[in-house]
């Protein structure tokens, strides 16, 4: 049995970095468009800005077929449990980009009706400022996400998502016990967390 000369055909690396390299270059976006940011998003996806250059070409309108949630616009308290369910249904591993100030912090809507930042109910990886942000800003935000993906470890991402599932289980348990609607349950969880100075419920 003769020796096989492999030369340059073998490269050593870490599993994390090669998997993350694949992940960051094939993001499948799911738009959760609720306001004007979604209009900028259309521009970002189409020919002038051409978001598909970054490997996120296949836009899917089903959470089951996507792994990057783009929240584009104002999210009301009534939408909060809907957003949580959509995030829960997405294929793992999954990332969230809060596009625009409304999704990031509630923006100018400082009222009872508006969720003060989607990071209170779902984990957010990148916040893109602007009202609405220009397509370049959104692209830069996703480039930041790609950089973050290339740095993260596979297990930490899994644990990060697992924390959200635990909060969803807490929500369902609470809903069963109180007999309240999902809207009111999430609202009360957010208010109670706020009373304790906590930003988020997950």
């Amino acid at each position, binding site marked *: 049995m003769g020796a096989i000369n492999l030369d340059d055909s073998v490269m050593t690396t870490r599993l994390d970095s090669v998997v993350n390299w694949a992940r960051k270059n094939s993001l499948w976006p799911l738009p959760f468009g609720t306001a004007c940011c979604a209009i900028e998003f259309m521009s970002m996806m189409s020919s002038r800005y051409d978001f598909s250059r970054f490997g996120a070409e296949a836009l899917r309108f089903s959470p089951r077929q996507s792994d990057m949630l783009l929240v584009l616009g104002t999210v009301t308290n*009534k939408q909060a449990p809907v957003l949580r369910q959509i995030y829960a249904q997405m294929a793992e591993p999954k990332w969230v980009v809060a596009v625009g100030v409304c999704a990031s912090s509630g923006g100018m809507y*400082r009222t*009872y009706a508006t969720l*003060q930042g989607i990071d209170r109910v779902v984990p957010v990886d990148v916040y893109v400022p602007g009202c609405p942000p*220009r397509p370049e800003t959104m692209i*830069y935000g996703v480039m930041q996400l790609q950089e973050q993906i290339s740095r993260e470890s596979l297990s930490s991402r899994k644990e990060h998502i697992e924390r959200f599932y635990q909060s969803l289980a807490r929500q369902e348990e609470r809903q069963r016990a109180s007999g309240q609607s999902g*809207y009111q349950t999430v609202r009360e969880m957010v*208010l109670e967390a706020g009373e304790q100075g906590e*930003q988020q419920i997950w």
Partner: protein
Amino acid sequence: MVIERIEAQLPGVVLDRHDFRGDETVVVAGDRFLEVVDFIFGEGFQMLLDVTAVDREDREPRFDVVYHFLNLTSQDRLRIKVPVAEGCAVPSLVSRFKSADWSEREVFDLFGIPFEGHPNLSRLLMWEDFPGHPLRKDYPLDGGDRFCSQDIGASFAPEARSLNI
């Protein structure tokens, strides 16, 4: 002027009135409201554009329910205000105007004013078990959320990177 005709046909029904550049408003009591609506329907005011309410808070009765009517032939508009006290009901117009259905549900949802005779008086915008009625003056704007009105959230400013775009 339709207000004069209302006063002639239904004496004493108009509690107050004003008109400014064709913007005609009458105030009528809740118990005679349906008479007025039936009369102006015959006069041509056959479209109910909107039902809303005003919370006067310190006044008694506390609320004004405001109806906007449009005369489709003459294009005249008429606003009817019905003062209503807290907990008292206003007669529903759903049997006369289909557009009253959701408008009245919205007023019920946001002001807590019940409409007598409405076929499905449930909340329109807020969820069913939402506590309180948000457009009342005594409802806090932030809905009790400390993160809403005060800056107590964690600041991400030191970690933010410059975008330079």
